[in-house]
């Protein structure tokens, strides 16, 4: 008797694994039917229109309050999200379910092809004025059109990459700011020789976006569209050059191999054992939070270059604001996101409250008059940042960025742990084959 009860309990518990998958898909089934996705905005004649906005930018509600005060007919409610990845997961689930998606969605550039491919973002080309496009750098605008005539979002901020370093330590060691990658390698050696616990930087296998930016700088573009087929070009010469370079420095031991954004890395920034960071224009906010003791000692410069005569940079981070296909008021939603990202007052508020680097060029000068608080020692911070931003090359993201990025984590994690230059190159091949196979298995047209 006791045995059968025991077995039943065991059997019941065993089903919990099934439930994990079952639950996630069951809400897709249950809630279908209540939303009328695709309804256009013509029903919105009576009463104020209520729009929901999923975003993870800090203090976004304060910026939205400005809009709500001036537009009683179109009221926007901010719904705070945990971050880029979880928000996309939630949105895709809601799209699959047929209801539950917001009207407006913040989306990182690398997620846009995935969202468009899942029919989550509406084409708002008809609702966004033609003059809007001309205010954005071409590479950024390309990220929201995917090279087509459609417009899937309005760019909000961009993350041109720059080199952040501890000016005081550089002075102490008699180092000049490296302008080429060769000089960067020499500087890394000098720093590590001075103190074997001190590094000029780390190779982070957990930040695929960071490595993407470095590859973009070297001239890589990992995906492409040839007619009606996708191409995957992760294992290009440019990416291999970057992987080879970092693999060499890690193998030599002059660049650390631990991930960024860990408590250990935060502490290292603060206690001066990590004295440099190849990061993006939003870095001051991160440094302010993670390394408060080092205030006033950091400076920013352009990235070290592969070819000093043709300066280039990549992008790390940045996002756009789009309208979802489930919104019943795409017209009003498009009006709001155009205001949010291009109106001078809105952009000023975004810079002040959310600390972003606006992508809309005409509004930059006024919004970025002051350097970030943590870099008050560098008066020309945004002037320099603007010059650097102009050198960003273009980069095409594909519909399975998540697959490539998770392949990066696993393959480069292994390579960084083994500290072997050869494995860094193998990791690039692994990323290429994983990404390409995934596209093929899903049935995408792929050209090789």
């Amino acid at each position, binding site marked *: 008797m006791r045995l059968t009860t025991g077995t039943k309990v065991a*059997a019941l518990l065993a089903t919990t*694994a099934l439930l994990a998958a*079952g639950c996630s898909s069951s809400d897709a089934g249950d809630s279908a039917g209540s939303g009328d996705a695709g309804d256009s905005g013509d029903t919105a004649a009576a009463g104020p229109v209520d729009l929901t906005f999923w975003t993870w930018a800090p203090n976004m509600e304060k910026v939205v309050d400005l809009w709500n005060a001036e537009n009683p007919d179109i009221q926007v409610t901010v719904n705070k999200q945990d971050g880029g990845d979880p928000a996309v997961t939630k949105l895709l689930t809601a799209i699959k379910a047929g209801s539950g998606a917001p009207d407006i969605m913040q989306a990182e550039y690398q997620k846009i092809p995935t969202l468009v*491919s899942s029919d989550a973002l509406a084409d708002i080309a008809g609702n966004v004025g033609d003059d809007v496009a001309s205010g954005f750098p071409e590479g950024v605008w390309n990220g929201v059109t995917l090279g087509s005539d459609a417009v899937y979002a309005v760019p909000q901020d961009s993350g041109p990459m720059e080199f952040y370093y501890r000016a005081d330590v550089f002075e102490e060691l008699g180092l000049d700011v490296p302008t080429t990658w060769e000089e960067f390698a020499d500087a890394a050696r000098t720093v590590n020789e001075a103190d074997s616990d001190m590094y000029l930087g780390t190779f982070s*296998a957990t930040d695929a976006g960071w490595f993407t930016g470095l590859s973009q700088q070297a001239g890589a573009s990992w995906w492409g569209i040839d007619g009606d087929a996708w191409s995957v070009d992760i294992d290009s010469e440019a990416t291999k050059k970057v992987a080879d370079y970092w693999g060499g420095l890690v193998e030599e031991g002059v660049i650390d191999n631990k991930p960024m954004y860990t408590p250990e890395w935060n502490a290292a920034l603060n206690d001066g054992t990590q004295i440099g960071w190849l990061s993006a224009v939003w870095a001051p906010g991160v440094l302010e939070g993670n390394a408060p003791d080092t205030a006033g000692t950091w400076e920013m410069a352009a990235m070290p270059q592969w070819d000093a005569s043709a300066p280039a940079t990549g992008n790390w981070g940045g996002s756009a604001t789009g309208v979802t296909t489930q919104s019943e008021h795409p017209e009003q939603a498009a009006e709001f996101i155009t205001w949010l990202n291009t109106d001078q007052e809105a952009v000023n508020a975004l810079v002040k409250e959310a600390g972003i680097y606006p992508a809309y060029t005409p509004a930059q000068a006024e919004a970025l008059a002051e350097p970030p608080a943590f870099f008050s020692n560098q008066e020309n911070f945004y002037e320099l940042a603007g010059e650097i931003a102009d050198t960003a090359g273009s980069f095409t993201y594909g519909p399975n960025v*998540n697959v490539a990025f998770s392949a990066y984590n696993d393959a480069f994690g292994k390579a960084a742990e083994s500290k072997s230059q050869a494995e860094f190159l193998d990791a690039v091949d692994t990323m290429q084959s994983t990404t390409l196979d995934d596209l093929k298995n899903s049935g995408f047209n792929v050209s090789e």
Partner: protein
Amino acid sequence: MTTTTSPPRTGTTRPARRTRRRLAPWAFLSPAIALFVVFLALPILYSVYMSFRTEQVSGLGLGADSRTEVWNGFSNYAQSLADPEFLASVGRVGIYGLLVVPTMLGLALLFALLLDSRRTRARGFSRISIFLPYAVPAVISSLLWGFLYLPGVSPFYYVFDQLGWDVPSLFSSDLVMFAVANIAVWGGTGFNMVVIYTALKAIPSELYEAAELDGCTQKGIALRIKIPIVVPSIIMTSVFSMIATLQVFAEPTTLKPLSNTISSTWTPLMKVYRDAFVRGDLYSAAATSVIIALATFVLSFGFLRLVQSRAFGQEK
């Protein structure tokens, strides 16, 4: 349901009363059945259904009508079972289980026996403090241990450093298994101890008196009386621990961003999560979940069958 309208005592006919009697248990059961069907049976059936399907993209995959769901037979299963990453994760969980289950249950039994021994002082305090880690959610305890494992911020490594010891990082590829197992042992020992301790408390004290009269030592009592009597509890906790082992997810997922050595498919359930939510492929994730559930069934039943004669033999 005509029976419900007729008054209960007066003119009820015999067949109507019989019907009502037959229906009564179902009425009592219906809430449980409804909950079971809605929250357990249907989701399971749906994920089994999904595991036989897949999504086909056409062309560039951009735009509204580029995705169609199609029948896929056993391909998802074949793919899962042939996936070297899945097999590696199964192997890893096997080693992890061999580390965790015996250590955790061994400690739980030891602590339970110590608490039950007559000479133990501060019994309530000890019981609570051993049990307390179980009350800490796995994500929190993993973050906590994660801090302690990172040489740069760990007070332990600070002490090792001061003593001049060169202790390797627990996140290195050779040791990361122990780092994860340690969290499970820390969190699970208390619960299992309480289960075994409760079984020990139920042993009638005449047995001890008789043993003592026969000249048995405390150690002898523990080995010859207590342990054999609590074997059924140990078996039950083993089954639960094995199932928990197969489903390990929270600890490695929380530790993953702190290290290079935990991949996104480190355990089978992490692979399910990655496939479903990172790759957006719910279909193959469903197939892998079904495989894991079946494996859990087989292992639990197999283990129970293996030990049943020994543990429950006297009840047959």
